[in-house]
């Protein structure tokens, strides 16, 4: 019994079909509990008023936007090293989800920034890094669409993902060098184990983050299944066309 067994599409689809109902249910519960608790069950911040509540959308979306790219990076590496098709298709499936998360983070940030910073957009390092991340997602998806041969497309996008990761990290630090920030520091600094958010805000945020993570997982499994079936359909159609 090893993880690589699930590189077999049949096994993968079987497992994903069994797991998905639970994942969807857990994601729905966590997201709705997190958001309801966050929106209605927490006090207003004494300086930010009710605008603080957008954090329950903004932070989890931003978290998943970065982690989605990271997952694509791992999946691309697995494809390049072990040539498992499921892995390449999972990376393909994750990209639009990650891009949506990036857009949610950017849009909610702008909505929050307008009353708080007095501007929809500032060329702050974090905002700019996210915009660059958005461009990387866009390029990645466009490359998938542009190449006809699926294996070549998987190869090319995998390398793009690797190179893009290096440049995304580089851009992050370059951007910080270029302009000092307006954005506040991280809400949940994992490295130090500390916390810059009070407990009342933190627990609903945590639930919401877990919910977004589960939602991402469920969406990726679902979309990967779709991609696998799409490829099977194409193979069937090609066979029919050849026989006829």
């Amino acid at each position, binding site marked *: 019994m090893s993880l690589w067994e699930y590189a077999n599409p049949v096994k993968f689809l079987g497992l994903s079909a069994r797991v998905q109902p639970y994942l969807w249910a857990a994601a729905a519960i966590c997201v709705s509990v997190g958001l309801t608790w966050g929106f209605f069950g927490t006090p207003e911040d004494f300086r930010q008023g009710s605008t603080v509540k957008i954090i329950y959308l903004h932070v989890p979306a931003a978290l998943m936007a970065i982690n989605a790219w990271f997952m694509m990076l791992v999946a691309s590496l697995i494809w390049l090293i072990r040539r498992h098709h499921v892995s390449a298709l999972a990376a393909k499936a994750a990209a639009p989800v990650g891009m949506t998360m990036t857009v949610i983070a950017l849009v909610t940030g702008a909505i929050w920034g307008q009353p708080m910073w007095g501007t929809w957009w500032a060329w702050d390092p974090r905002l700019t890094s996210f915009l*660059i991340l958005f461009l990387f997602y866009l390029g990645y998806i466009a*490359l998938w669409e542009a*190449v006809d041969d699926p294996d070549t497309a998987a190869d*090319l996008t995998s390398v*793009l993902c690797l*190179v*893009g990761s290096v*440049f995304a990290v580089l851009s992050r630090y*370059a951007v910080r*060098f270029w302009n000092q920030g307006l954005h506040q520091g991280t809400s949940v600094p994992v490295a130090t184990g500390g916390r810059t958010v009070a407990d009342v805000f933190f627990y609903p945020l945590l639930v919401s983050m877990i919910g977004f993570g589960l939602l991402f997982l469920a969406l990726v499994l679902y979309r990967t299944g779709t991609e696998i079936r799409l490829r099977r359909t194409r193979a069937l159609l090609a066979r029919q066309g050849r026989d006829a």
Partner: protein
Amino acid sequence: MIALLRRDLMLAFRAGGGFGLGLAFFLIVTILVPFSVGPQSDLLGTIAPGVLWLGALLACLLSLDRLLALDFEDGTLDLLATAPLPLEAALSVKALSHWLTTGLPLVLAAPVLGVMLNLAPSGFVWLVSSLAVGTPALSVIGTFGAALTVGIKRGGLLMSLLVLPLYVPTLIFGAEVARRGAQGLDPVTSLLLLGGITCATIALMPFASAAVLRMTLR
């Protein structure tokens, strides 16, 4: 390698193959800037380093799809891929010839255009050195983009979409050197970081470019 370099340079110079095209584009962009922002000389002086860097970057980008596309169409790339010379080396030479025909003329033309944009006198040395250090990185990264999209029909726009985000760090540090130089601040840190990016991309990107080119040619 030298034969390949000579061939590429000769093609660029003789057959109307893009030599001077990037330069002309750079010239026109820079001349258009005062029309769009107005002729106030202090404003032009402030934005001159950024405008010159952006112009140089776009001029590099413009000439990228000629870098491999013609060789791909007539089969030269297939020969290069099977030649005893490693594909990594061949692509490095391609990037070098792209830099010699596009980057180097831009570096040489930049001071003249700097005068037209009223760049501060202290900025000229730093503008030229930042372009000289930074444009090789643009060529090498661009070669990767060209290799990535060479098999795609009408891939020019896609290549811009893929390459432009990769240009961000180079542009930031390059324009920072020129800006700080023009304002009389110390630009050495940015210049060293820019040099670091250039060295790293020259060392590593040919491997990525050759890898994707092999995938396309397979």
